[in-house]
């Protein structure tokens, strides 16, 4: 239960808004972080905390694409397929992924490690093709870079190939990380 585990955090979030309902997205994120998706139990609990009806929470979950009603793979690979990325090879990136993971958009590998989705513009149009894996952006992806990313993720759960604070054209000298 969220309320017992994150009492202080929930209080802190609620204190930011004059109306409790505003906390619905932050609390849904909290629930998704906890379970990997938004469960019915979590929606009912959030409704209770915010004094809403469960459908009022459910209708929010179904509106926003980043909230999942079902469990997905450990790594959610989201490939931008909008025009700007498509111009520089997002379809090729999807083919590379298919060749390596054996799955296409909307599918999860049998070991539940990877789920692939196609998504619309992620605001990295100058650095396509690109994908977001869970919270991290990976940009200007080449075939070699993709191999590195997938190997890193499988081995370490993260990859140093992810993007740092964005700047394009890149400043002189190496990319600085905060």
């Amino acid at each position, binding site marked *: 239960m969220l309320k017992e585990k994150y009492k202080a955090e929930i209080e802190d979030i609620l204190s*930011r808004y*004059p*109306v409790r*309902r*505003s*906390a*619905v*997205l*932050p609390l*849904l*994120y909290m629930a998704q972080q906890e379970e990997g998706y938004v469960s019915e139990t979590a929606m009912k609990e959030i409704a209770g905390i*915010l004094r*809403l009806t469960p459908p009022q929470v459910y*209708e*929010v979950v179904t*509106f*926003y*694409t*980043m*909230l999942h009603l079902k469990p997905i793979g450990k790594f959610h690979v989201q490939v931008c*397929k*909008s*025009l*700007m990325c*498509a*111009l*520089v090879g997002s379809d090729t990136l999807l083919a590379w992924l298919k060749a390596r993971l054996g799955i296409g958009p909307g599918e999860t590998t049998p070991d539940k490690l990877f789920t692939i989705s196609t*998504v*619309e*513009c*992620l*605001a*990295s*149009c*100058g*650095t*396509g093709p690109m994908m*977001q894996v869970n*919270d*991290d*952006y990976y940009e200007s992806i080449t075939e070699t870079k993709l191999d590195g990313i997938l190997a890193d993720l499988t081995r370490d759960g993260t990859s140093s190939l992810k*993007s*740092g*604070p*964005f*700047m*394009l*054209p890149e*400043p*002189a*000298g190496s990319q*600085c990380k*905060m």
Partner: protein
Amino acid sequence: MPKYEKILLKNMEIPGYTGSLADYERAGGYQALRKVLGKVPPAEVTDTVKKSGLRGRGGAGFPTGVKWGFLPKDYQGPKYLCCNADESEPGTFKDRQLIERDPHQIIEGILIACYAIGVKTAYLYIRGEFVLGAQILDRALAEARTAGYVGRDILGMGSSIDIWVHRGAGAYICGEETALLESLEGKRGLPRVKPPFPATHGLYNKPTVVNNVETLANLPHIMNRGAEWFAAIGSPPKSSGTRIFCVSGHVKRPGNFEVPMGITLRELIFEHAGGMRSDKPLKAIIPGGASAPFFTPEHLDVKLDFESVAQAGSMLGSGGVTVMEEGTSMVWAALRLMEFFYHESCGKCTPCREGSSWLVQTMRRIIDGRGRKSDLETLVELCQNIAGRTVCAFGDAEVAPIMSTLKYWRHEYEELIQQAAATEPVKLMMPAMAKH
């Protein structure tokens, strides 16, 4: 290549600049806030912004000071400011850079705006995918709170302003200001019917201003250097200041280029962005994000300011300039954008919800070699029944790719349909009966 003085991207070009509070202060940060807070009357700040000619950088280009002026005078209850960091317009990636590289510049801008319009609580609505950006902003806000720039009794001058980061969760429409407010209220992000406008009935039904990240980031500089300085940059009187143009597509050097408004598309693409990536010539340009009608190479000398781009039949929009080379199918390009709009239609208005689905189906049919002679008429009819018939500007935006590619590259559509007609009899043959 002509060199221009950068305003918004200046700090981040300092070698080793991390965007921390110390770095920002060293670069002159928070001087504008110190100069203004408690020393310049709020109404005078609004006047300065009006005189500067600053217009919204999110897409619509509404004069910022005028927008502030719509808030009811002498209103005693709570008012709100929302910083729109929901950057989702395909082709646009400037706010992301401003957020991740120089977050305090935005925070100082928000504080100045809040002071000018008497707001005590501001929300920074950032698109959900910008996890890194939200972390950087949270960290910067914590630094600013500790230093006394955000929170109670700022700098001991009696003003209290709080700023909270609020993450969206993947919905393009939440960049529309009233949808943003709905989302922030914990609802589905459906645009509201206007009027009433947010200035009187906004967040929680209270007077509210929504400003884009880049718009707010300009404020510290306007306060530091004056309205006249800003007003003289670019293409006065209607398009003052710089714009950060985000160049993507088939160019050698894609990226964010901050230049004074009024330079030509030719200069932006061929000098700043390094020209075409290969020897294939230029075929098409989208000058202001996915919602802006396409341009052809004949438009290369159009000046990049609000009026010139509008006069040429498109819009400056969010500053996302996408370049396409010869060999790119315009029907395919329009379909890709149409798929985006279909995916992102919020579903509130029937013409947009149903129309976008029909448009995608018709476009797919044409691309897949199943196009019919009547399809072009169908496309136009559908577009005409969407534009201007929806609650928000999304309806006008979604028809732009199809209408403009039909205008300039109609033959590409016709060729596909003619090819389909040639193969039609084969496709229409009845499948052989299965034998049991």
